[in-house]
């Protein structure tokens, strides 16, 4: 058994181009076999790591973002702000300045440029960051407020809480802004892929993003069965390191649907994820030595 893995300082992001490939299954189990690790649920739109790790929370912090608010008495409708806004978050009708908070990226340029000081920053709640413990695992997660559209500041807030040792990031699905922000904090990316054409397509999308951000990565083939695996074909064509495959297994699905952490329930999966963690650490060592 590999119960005595000493975590060194590294951050592993578990990614996939789509939802439902097994990111949470893999991240929760990697953190759990490592024991001394930080698990961060970056899927702030739909966090679910807590269902498995069942943390006891010690802290909850509301995260806010600054948005411009106009004083119409001071605004003369000069349009300096609306013309400068890179996101089209401002419009000027007559002398009325319209501000669209959900389009605004809180860059602050409008407030900086306003010659009449008509714009002030107001902090608006975006979501919460929760900190807790699950056994020896430090647990971090965040949840976006319903109705918000851009959660990047929540990811940044989560990453500020990250400390030394082994960190496993349960990434948001896809390959958009949230994933880009998440990957930028990782030393190594583990791409979890399904054995379908759709799975391979999404693997390609997230792989391209990882390449763009110049992060080392490897693939874990999940839900493998007999027959063709388009994700395996993609990995081979692109010389991606394959760290293993996790065969489709009803017992594993049952444990997961019961909210259980597979390696804590099954000797077979304890061995599997301990070995996978070792593989991931070795692969990330190989890359960091290059």
């Amino acid at each position: 058994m590999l119960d005595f893995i000493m975590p060194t300082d590294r951050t592993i992001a578990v990614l996939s181009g789509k939802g439902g490939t097994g990111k949470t299954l893999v991240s929760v189990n990697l953190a759990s076999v490592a024991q001394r690790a930080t698990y961060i649920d970056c899927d702030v739109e739909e966090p679910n790591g807590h269902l498995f790790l069942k943390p006891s929370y010690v802290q909850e912090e509301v995260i806010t973002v600054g948005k411009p608010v106009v004083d119409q008495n001071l605004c003369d409708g000069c349009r300096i702000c609306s013309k400068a806004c890179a996101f089209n978050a401002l419009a000027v009708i007559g002398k009325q300045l319209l501000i669209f908070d959900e389009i605004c990226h809180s860059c602050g340029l409008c407030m900086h440029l306003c010659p009449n000081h008509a714009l002030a920053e107001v902090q608006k709640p975006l979501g919460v960051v929760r900190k807790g413990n699950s056994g020896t695992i430090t647990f971090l997660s965040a949840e976006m407020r319903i109705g918000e559209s851009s959660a990047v500041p929540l990811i940044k807030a989560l990453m500020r809480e990250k400390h030394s040792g082994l960190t496993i990031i349960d990434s948001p699905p896809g390959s958009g802004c949230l994933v880009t922000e998440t990957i930028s904090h990782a030393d190594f990316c583990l791409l979890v892929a399904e054995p379908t054409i759709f799975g391979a397509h999404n693997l390609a999308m997230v792989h391209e993003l990882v390449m763009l951000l110049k992060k080392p990565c490897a693939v874990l083939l999940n839900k493998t069965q007999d027959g063709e695996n388009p994700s395996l074909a993609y990995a081979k064509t692109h010389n991606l390191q394959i760290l293993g495959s996790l065969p489709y297994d009803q017992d594993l699905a049952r444990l997961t649907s019961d909210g259980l952490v597979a390696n804590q329930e099954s000797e077979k999966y304890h061995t599997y994820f301990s070995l996978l963690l070792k593989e991931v650490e070795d692969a990330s060592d190989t890359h960091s030595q290059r």
Partner: protein
Amino acid sequence: MIVAVPAEEQKLDSPLCVSFGRAPYYCIFNTETQKSRFIENAAAQSPGGAGIQAAQDLVDAKITTLITFRLGENAAKVLKAADISLLKALNLSIADNISALLENKLAELDAIHAGFHHAH
């Protein structure tokens, strides 16, 4: 009355563009002079907020009426602030929609959608 119609092509007999903010062109028709012209939609390629910018540009072009299939809530807010009348397009060419407007056959745009912004 100055009318704007989102257009896929710069032709009066072509169908309307189904998108407001991402339409490549707008047909601008002046009911007094009976003259039409097409303007490019500079906002069409914006990564975000295309509807807001397109609405701003049309307000600046002094339109009084917009004929469209659909409209996002942000663009609607800009156009309503400028008192632009918003009318529901018929599944006809641009020219026929303008004729229908002149014959008072166009209804007010009832449904404003929540927008198709992708998550960031």
